């Protein structure tokens, strides 16, 4: 019973519909190959085996509609049109059904074989919404299965229906628009020239031509095919004259009313059950005073927990590595072999014992905040402050993600609609202390000088972000378009999802960073064995010794800091030739602060630089690097003067 080719199944749904949860509950259990981790911006691809049948399933970022100018959502369109999936799984949040159906109706227009997962039925019930799935099914002509993806409920039924559609096909029932609009659509459809690239079917293509005409992405048409361009313009003008509103608005409103009607025909809302627990919690979380107290408390707790978990873990894990080194020193003497072994142990020990203890709790807490839905609420609370640095609340979530790692944070700026906001946010993100820098700050500043110093460091760091943002926004004159941000309903974070997310990121870290940490450490060992590190140190001496007042030996660590920031920390110990516990014997408190400040700011790490280049272009990537160097110098000198 082998099928000649593996069917492609695309998962599509509005943001926060539980799409990825559903995807993971299918891919995670039955995955034949591992999932490729990604941020929610990249897509995830997985081949799964379900009761002996193979499927290629693809999870795309959430999208509100198929007509979008949001770059993150445009990826969805590209995939949808390029991949020509054998099946679309449309995930709809049942608790906000009337809006979710708008995308569903658009997918019915698109006309690929599809099934609908009516997800989060439990939330809908709690809200007092009763939905008759069979009613929706008969009206749109596609299977509609109630699911609760978080508990794995309904997933099997959904898959059964999916295979049914793949095997037997289906007859979707696209709904015509009002007569005046529909006749214009038919006109364009009829006049599509032969050979015109048709997406799925002629009617859908015609609708999209009218919807996008006059809009940036629709303008190319006039150049490609002037005749068709004129037809589309005529249809658009006719609709606009009839309705007194732009054509895209009329079509969107048509779909909106179809969705509301479909909702009313198939659902009942029981009154009196509206104030659920999440509404009460939200009233507190976004309260004008309490909200900010909670926000501050969340951030303090965030770093406190990471330090309290990471610190003892670090001491515990470092012990064995140090004793191993002592043993090896006694056995191997002072030859090349010892240098290599020492480099290897420093590298592995650094990755395992210094970085991981802080990295792991940070990732877990970040996933908790993300899954709970707190990032959007933080965006709401901080919007007014963000205006002072020329941004708005939607940039808050990339910033917060930046505390984990700058790279996915910069990728996630694609959720911002305007190019200007993306550039400004991307330039500021490298100033956010990512987990690598948090490790350095906690391992050096908090460990040796106390947690209060580390807190102070963070406060100064955030101030730097604010000042740099304020300065740059003076140069980017274009106004910001303003905040339009969905506040998703609160969800209790689920352990499985948090562990899965954390695991993917740790895995990526181990795969990407450990080789660099170990390799870098080995290279430094070799350099010092052949005395070549002196050369680098001598070249950098004017900066390191004269400029920053640091030990001569630390010059070489700066070079490696460009690869990964944690590397500087590990190299620092190696370059100074001391154990972590004995660091204070060779370096002063002031030097620790200056070193931390300089390392944190002096340049975005290599991966951040590459992603900046890719996302906002070479010019801005260099602007960002230049800014970092200047800020690092100014701050380090200030610190030297003050202390």
């Amino acid at each position, binding site marked *: 019973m082998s099928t000649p080719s593996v069917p492609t199944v695309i998962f599509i749904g509005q943001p926060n519909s539980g799409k990825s949860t559903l995807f993971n509950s299918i891919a995670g259990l039955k995955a034949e190959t591992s999932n490729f981790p990604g941020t929610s911006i990249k897509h995830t691809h997985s081949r799964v085996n379900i009761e002996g049948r193979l499927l290629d399933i693809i999870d795309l970022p959430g999208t509100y509609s198929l007509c979008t100018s949001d770059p993150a959502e445009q990826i969805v369109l590209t995939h949808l049109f390029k991949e020509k999936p054998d099946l679309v799984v449309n995930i709809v949040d049942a608790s906000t059904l009337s809006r979710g159906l708008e995308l569903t109706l658009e997918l019915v227009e698109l006309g690929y074989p599809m099934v609908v997962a009516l997800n989060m039925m439990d939330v809908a019930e709690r809200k007092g919404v009763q939905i008759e799935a069979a009613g929706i099914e008969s009206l749109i002509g596609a299977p509609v299965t109630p699911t609760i993806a978080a508990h794995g409920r309904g997933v099997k039924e959904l898959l059964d229906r999916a295979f049914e559609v793949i095997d037997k096909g289906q007859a979707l029932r696209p709904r015509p628009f009002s007569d005046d609009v529909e006749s214009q659509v038919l006109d364009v459809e009829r006049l599509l020239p032969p050979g015109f690239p048709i997406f799925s079917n002629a009617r859908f293509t015609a609708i999209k031509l009218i919807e996008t005409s006059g809009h940036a992405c629709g303008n190319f048409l006039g150049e490609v095919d002037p005749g068709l361009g004129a037809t589309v313009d005529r249809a658009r003008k006719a609709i606009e004259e009839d309705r007194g509103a732009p054509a895209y608005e009329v079509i*969107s409103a048509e779909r909106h009313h179809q969705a509301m009607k479909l909702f009313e025909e198939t659902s009942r809302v029981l009154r009196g059950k509206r104030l659920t627990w999440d509404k009460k919690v939200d009233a507190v979380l976004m309260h004008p005073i309490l909200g900010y107290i909670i926000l501050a408390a969340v951030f303090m707790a965030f770093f406190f927990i990471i330090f309290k978990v990471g610190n003892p873990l670090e001491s515990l894990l470092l012990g064995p590595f140090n004793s191993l080194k002592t043993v090896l020193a006694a056995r191997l003497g002072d030859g090349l072999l010892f240098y290599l072994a020492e480099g290897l142990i420093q590298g592995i020990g650094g990755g395992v014992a210094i970085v991981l203890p802080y990295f792991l709790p940070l990732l877990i807490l970040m996933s908790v905040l993300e899954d709970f839905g707190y990032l*959007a609420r933080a965006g709401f609370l901080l919007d007014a402050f963000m205006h002072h640095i020329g941004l708005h609340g939607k940039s808050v979530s990339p910033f917060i993600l930046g505390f984990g790692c700058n790279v996915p944070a910069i990728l996630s700026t694609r959720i911002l609609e305007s190019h200007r906001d993306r550039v400004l946010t991307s330039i500021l993100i490298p100033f956010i202390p990512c987990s690598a820098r948090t490790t350095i700050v906690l391992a050096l500043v908090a460990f040796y000088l106390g947690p209060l110093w580390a807190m102070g460091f963070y406060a100064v760091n955030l101030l730097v972000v604010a000042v740099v943002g304020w300065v740059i926004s003076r140069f980017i004159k274009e106004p910001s378009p*303003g905040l339009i941000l969905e506040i998703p309903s609160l969800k209790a974070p689920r352990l499985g999802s948090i562990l899965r997310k954390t695991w993917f990121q740790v895995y990526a870290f181990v795969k990407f960073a450990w080789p660099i940490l170990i390799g870098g450490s080995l290279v430094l060992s070799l350099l010092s064995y052949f005395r070549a590190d002196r050369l680098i140190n001598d070249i950098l001496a004017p900066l390191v010794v004269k400029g920053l007042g640091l030990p001569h030996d630390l010059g070489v660590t700066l070079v490696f800091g460009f690869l990964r920031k944690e590397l500087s920390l590990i190299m620092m110990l190696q370059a100074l030739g001391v154990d972590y516990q004995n660091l204070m014997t060779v370096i002063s408190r002031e030097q620790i602060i200056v070193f931390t400040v300089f390392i944190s700011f002096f340049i975005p790490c290599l991966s951040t630089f590459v992603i900046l280049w890719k996302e906002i272009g070479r010019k801005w990537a260099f602007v960002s690097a230049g800014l970092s160097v200047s800020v690092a110098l100014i701050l380090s000198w200030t610190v030297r003067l003050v202390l």
Partner: protein
Amino acid sequence: MEDRLNCIESTPMNLANAPHNTPLRIADLAGGESARRRLMALGFHKGDVVELDGRAILRGPLLVRNCTSDTTIALGRGVAQKVLVELVHEHS
């Protein structure tokens, strides 16, 4: 065209000045095309009934809930000023 609500229509005001916790009908979406497309994609159209659920300090954003779909969005003041609404009086 609405059968459930008998509305006594008042003069439109912008959403930023509208009263809280009162049903409001969107009379018009003004403002730039991209903001309007975004609002519509998020399910906010002319004729919809919405409620203001809260506001942030320092002229911060407003929390706007769509009563039909029960979705909530945060709207910056600038955007909210471009959304015109009128009071809806419900008689059941």
